[in-house]
């Protein structure tokens, strides 16, 4: 089934793609990164729950499979189009009004640092309706409140279908508070992201 025109238009018009995931989201994120075209013309910000202290291979694996340059976020770097940014472990990632990242080491949220909520809420304040945000599989409630803020600000919000997710808690939490414009299966998410 082709994605409906409304969602495709909103995706195409957005400037920022926000991706939030936890347990069970790695494969999907990997697939999404492979799909994103070189001329995406959007900035991509990925918040994935990760363990501190262990230099993970995530950046390397993602970068090898991406057509777009990919970086781990450093303090006060500018957010550019056609670039993928990954939130570092043991920091929260905030977005300044002038389009720069700002990091923060305050308390974890939902036992998570980075917290998806923190970045999504910050994006809602900075970019209001200019984002597409996708919340994927995960085993806690992080991201739901942030997604709701993005939805209320007019951004396009998508949640992975809990029946399709390895860990349904995170998508469920978002759906329960009505934070999703659309509930899509992984394949439908890929299809949408291809259409740009």
């Amino acid at each position, binding site marked *: 089934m082709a994605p409906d025109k409304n969602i495709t238009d909103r995706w195409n018009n957005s400037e920022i793609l926000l991706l939030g995931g936890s347990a069970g989201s790695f494969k999907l994120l990997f697939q999404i990164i492979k799909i994103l075209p070189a001329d995406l013309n959007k900035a991509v910000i990925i918040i994935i729950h990760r363990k501190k202290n262990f230099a993970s291979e995530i950046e390397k694996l993602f970068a090898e499979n991406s057509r777009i340059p990919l970086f781990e976020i450093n*303090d006060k770097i500018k957010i550019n189009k056609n670039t993928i940014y990954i939130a570092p472990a043991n920091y929260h990632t*905030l977005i300044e009004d002038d389009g720069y990242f700002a990091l923060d080491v305050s308390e974890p949220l939902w036992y998570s640092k980075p917290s998806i909520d923190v970045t999504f809420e910050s994006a809602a304040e900075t970019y209001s309706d200019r984002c597409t945000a996708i919340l994927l599989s995960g085993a806690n409630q992080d991201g739901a409140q942030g997604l709701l803020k993005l939805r209320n600000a007019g951004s396009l919000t998508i949640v992975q279908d809990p029946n399709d997710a390895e860990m349904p808690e995170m998508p469920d939490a978002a759906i329960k508070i009505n934070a999703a414009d659309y509930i899509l299966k992984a394949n439908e998410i890929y299809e949408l992201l291809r259409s740009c």
Partner: protein
Amino acid sequence: MDVSTQGLTTEQITEIIDLVKKVHGFDFSDYSKASFKRRLTRVMMIKKLSFYDLKHVLLNDAVFFQNFLEEITVNVTEMFRDPSFYKALISQALPYLSTYQHIKIWSAGCSSGEEVYSLTILLNEAGLKDKSFIYGTDINTVVLKDARKGIYSFRNVKTYAENYQLCGLKGSLTDHFTVLYDAATIHNELKVNTLFSVHNLISDTIFNEFQLISCRNVFIYFETQLQEKILDLFYKSLCPHGFLCLGSKETIRSDFFKKKFKAVNQKENIYQKIGA
């Protein structure tokens, strides 16, 4: 009142910054806005204050201000945060530092003292503690009291133990503490060469000359111009070839200061002052 959904306007934030500056002499105007806003919203939620209540207590309640300062500034820290940094310090800075007659260290923005005691343990293990002195400074008097006590919850110390292990130090972190129920107190001999005092990086100046300055995860809360102002303070406070340690995501980006510091370890952001 639910401040979280209403959100503070830029004008309201500016108003609070002006008020705090005029009444209390603390200047948050070059603070990272996104973080300041988040912390402010959080204070208002915790204390159940509306914007007008907040202005009222900031004006009229002196005790509240210390509390406010504690909530606005982020005081989350760990012992041996980023083990890879401490490993780099051991292999790349300690051999150099050991050649000095006295090693003076400044931990700027030390919060409740975890970094200061991590450094003391490190120096002690390297046999350098007796010729070292560590100054811990923060703008917040409440956290400094905790730092001086050196008492941490045993639960926290256990979570720092993993960091300690990853640093490759011998024994266990708990070897350096006396534990009674949930209170873990750092051994007294590790406290002797430390001093904690108030220092405001934004408004205070040089107070000593150091062989090493550590200021990790403080710059993330400052805008770029303010970072440079403080880099200047650090540059002037370091002895020739003294070390500057920033947080793992904080890099010297200004061309001016790139010429004044050599990156000893690019990944861990350990720098060394160039020239006199």
